[in-house]
């Protein structure tokens, strides 16, 4: 096992711990925006999708580029749709006017 993989596993495990710590503190009232907001974050695959199209090797089969482009569409829907709808919801949460 090489060093890169080891470091990636470190990052993976630590990130899960941070996730657990932070998300247990999110109140039930915000669970729906939490889900749509995390949908947007999981759209981070867009970076992988962009990379797969941008760095497709010359002479690479068309299929790599086509798959990558569809992946960009999917991930962009997640990112744009996720952040916008989360913002739309969070705008509505208001405290009692005193």
């Amino acid at each position: 096992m090489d060093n890169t993989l080891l470091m990636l596993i470190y990052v993976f495990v630590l990130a899960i711990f941070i996730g657990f710590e932070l998300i247990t503190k999110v109140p039930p009232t915000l669970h729906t925006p939490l889900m749509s907001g995390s949908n947007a974050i999981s759209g981070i695959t867009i970076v992988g999708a962009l990379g797969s199209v941008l760095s497709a090797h010359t002479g690479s089969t068309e299929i790599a580029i086509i798959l990558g482009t569809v992946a960009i569409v999917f991930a962009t829907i997640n990112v744009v749709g996720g952040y916008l709808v989360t913002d739309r919801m969070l705008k509505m949460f208001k405290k009692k006017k005193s």
Partner: protein
Amino acid sequence: METIKIITYFSYLIASVLFIIGIKMLGSPKTARKGNFYSAVGMFIAVVVTLADQGILNFQYILIGIIIGSIVGATIAIKVKMTAMPQMVGLLNGFGGGASTLVAFSVYYDQLSLPNPNLNVQFTIAVMLSILIGTVTFSGSLIAFGKLQEIVSGKVIKFPLQNPISILLMAAAVVLLVMGVVNPQDATPYLIVAGISLVLGVLLVLPIGGADMPVVISLLNSYSGIAAATTGFVLNNSMLIIAGSLVGASGIILTNIMCKGMNRSLMNVVLGGWENAGTVTTADAKKVDIKSVDSEEAAMIFDAASKVIITPGYGMAVAQAQHAVKELMIVLEKKGIDVKFAIHPVAGRMPGHMNVLLAEADVPYDKLYALEDINDEFSNTDVALIIGANDVVNPAARHDKNSPIYGMPILNVDYAKTVIMNKRSMASGYAGIDNELFGYPNNLMYFGDAKDAITKLTNEIKNL
């Protein structure tokens, strides 16, 4: 290391930190909106830096992909009704999973096209797992979307040998995974794993009934994050791993909260419990006396009350009654009556569903109370009004060991002086069992569609 690479990696680090801060700020409704914005800034940085780093090859494809994705994403985000939020989240889960699968295949085929492809064990295992988890998430989410949108039956769908078939398919996927790793030049095992995963996702969600949807949506949310993290292992990209893990952890926590809210294990939900409930209770159903009221009588009861707790359920969402409920709240408060809302963790079709609907109707969020925060208050409440909820207020869960919902945490509405239950009919709830609350001496049924019934009630109270 080249300067551009250093800039890229540091920008990815900044983006990762912004995601973490964004989620942290979701810890309070006051900071949540800003947190979501920070998270979006992180995403923007990640995308721009990737484009700057990797040059302008195949730019036309990128542009087309981003434009189509943005138009579709923005359109559904702006158009979707708040009652349809579970479908929206279900769909987004699916796109997330689908994107991971596609990226894994794209990178794999790109390597295959090289004279000396680099297909080491880490790469191939990560590709296989991305395909497996991503595709299960994709097809499972589409079925969940179909069920919530009522394109696919929301009922528990079972067929013979369902579980053995699923186990067999999973075993086959493991064998193919090993084959793909041992002989990575051959794309066939990768394609078959994708096919099997499509079927597995369908089999996972098809048997699950409507009211168990909060569990499934949370679980698929978690999968979409884990799929993004495995894609990070394909590409050796820490930022994907961090972002994916955060989402994965979030989904797991929500899944756990939903399961606890029903006092069921994840296994029990996935394997479709409560299946025989209906037949058990109809056999020994007792004859109960049920009292019902009309809007005028109900209005008089409210008029005499000083403290009211409203318990909404999925029925409120179906009837789009959230605005009518808010009008009722205003009228009651004008009369000096204290109004609070009790929200059961699994009310609705996804975590926090009721809270979003009531927020849409301008009900302040500090009037909404979680189960553990309000349950002690019912005993000194004059009227507990239930709108379109059933199983989550069934007292049998507290004492009837034979009831399938025994042990499930419920809202103790029956401790209130008077319970008024708005329902369309006497039909049983999702669990398919009778609600013994109907026959309680302090319970009054107020029949009618939630929106009409609550509007009528509000008008009667106004006229008093």
